[in-house]
C-alpha cells in the first residue's frame, strides 16, 4: 500500500509543479510569476521529503531543509526591483 501511495503523492506534487509552471509562464504581472516560483520551492520541498521516505535516501531531507532556508533570498532580491515599471517591462 505504502509502496504505491508514496510515488503517487510525488506524482501528484509534480503535476502541481507543472500547473504552477503555467502561472510562471502566463503571469500576467511580475508578482504573479514570482509567487508561482516561490510556490514551486514549497512544492519541491514536499516532493523531496516524500522522495526521501520512498527512495530511502535520508539526505534528501537536508536538501529540503536548504531549500526552505534559502527560499526567502529570491523574494528579498525581487522586492528591490523598481516599482511601477513591472507591467511595462513585461509587456513585450
Amino acid at each position, binding site marked *: 500500500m505504502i509502496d504505491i501511495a508514496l510515488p503517487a503523492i510525488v506524482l501528484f506534487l509534480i503535476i502541481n509543479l507543472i500547473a504552477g509552471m503555467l502561472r510562471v509562464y502566463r503571469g500576467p504581472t511580475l508578482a504573479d510569476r514570482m509567487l508561482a516560483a516561490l510556490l*514551486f520551492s514549497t512544492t519541491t520541498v514536499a516532493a523531496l521529503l516524500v522522495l526521501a521516505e520512498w527512495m530511502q535516501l535520508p539526505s534528501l531531507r537536508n536538501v529540503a531543509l536548504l531549500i526552505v532556508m534559502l527560499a526567502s533570498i529570491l523574494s528579498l532580491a*525581487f522586492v528591490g526591483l523598481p516599482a511601477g515599471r513591472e507591467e511595462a*517591462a513585461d509587456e513585450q
Partner: protein
Amino acid sequence: MIGLALDLLIIVSLIGLAIQSINAASLFRGILHFVVLGLAMSLAWARLDAPDLAMAEAAIGAGVTGALMMIAYRRLIEIQPDQESSLRPPPSRLAVPIALAAGALVGVIGLAAIQAEPMPALAGTAVLENLGSTGLGNPITGVLLLFRGFDTLLEITVLLAALLSAQAVTRQVDLDQSLTTQDPDTPLVGALLAIVVPLTVLVSVHLLKAGGQETGGAFQAGAVLAACGVLLVLTGRLGASRQYSPLVNTGLLVGLLSFILIGLAPLLWGQPLLALPGLWAIYWIESAMMISIALTLVLLFAGAGSLKRRDHG
C-alpha cells in the same frame, strides 16, 4: 510504473523550463524559469540517487544564482529602462540548421552509447573497496580529498582565479552602487535575519561534519554559508568595500593554503604528495575550504574585493 511516469514528467518539465529560460518573452521570465529549472533539476538529481548533486544544486540555485540574476536584472533596467525590447537580436538563419545538426549528433552519440557494451566501472569499485581503510563513510568526500585530491586542489585555485579576474574588471564606481534591495530598517528584515542567519551557520557546520559520513561536504557547506552572506548583503548589513581587509584576504586564502601545506607535508617524511596524514587533515582542509568558498561566492556576488559591516539603528 508510477516511478516511470514521474521520471518522464520531470524530464518533460526540465526540457520545457530549459527552453523557456533561454527563450522567454522577457528577461524577467527567463530568470524565473531558470530558478525553477534549478529546483526541478534538484528533483531530477534526487531521482537519480545523487543527493550530493541535489544539495549543491539547491544551495547554489536557491541561495546565490537567483539573487545574482535578479540584481543584474535590476541594474540592467536602471541603466536602460527599455532593455527588454533591445536586448534580443534577430535570430540568425543558421540557427535552425545548426540546432537540427546538433540534435542529430546528440541522438547518434546517444544511440551509440546505448548500444555499446557497458564498461565495468573500475574506478568506482576501487574507491568503494579502499574506502574502509580511510575512516570516511562518504565515497564522494573520499574521491574529492583522497583519491583525486589534486583535482580538488586545482578547482579551489580556479575559484580564486575567477574571483581575481572578476575584480580586475570591476570598476570602482560600481562599488558605490548599493546592492541593498529595500529599507534596511524594515522590521520584517530584522526578524528574518534573526532566524535565518544563525540557522544557515548551524546547517553549514552540520553539512561540513556530515560530509565525512554521508551527504555534505565543503562545497555544499560553503554554498550555504555564502547564501547567508548574500542575504546580509541584500539586506544592507554587509556592503562592498574598497579597502582590502587582512581578515577577508586570509579567509579567501585559507582553503588553498591549508590544502597546499598539508598536501606538501607528507613529502618531508617520504610519503607521496597529497597523501593526507589522517582524518583530522581531511576535516581541517574541508573547514578551511568551506570558509574560502563561501567568501569567494559572496565577494563575486558583491563584485567587490572586500566587505565591510554596515550598522543600522
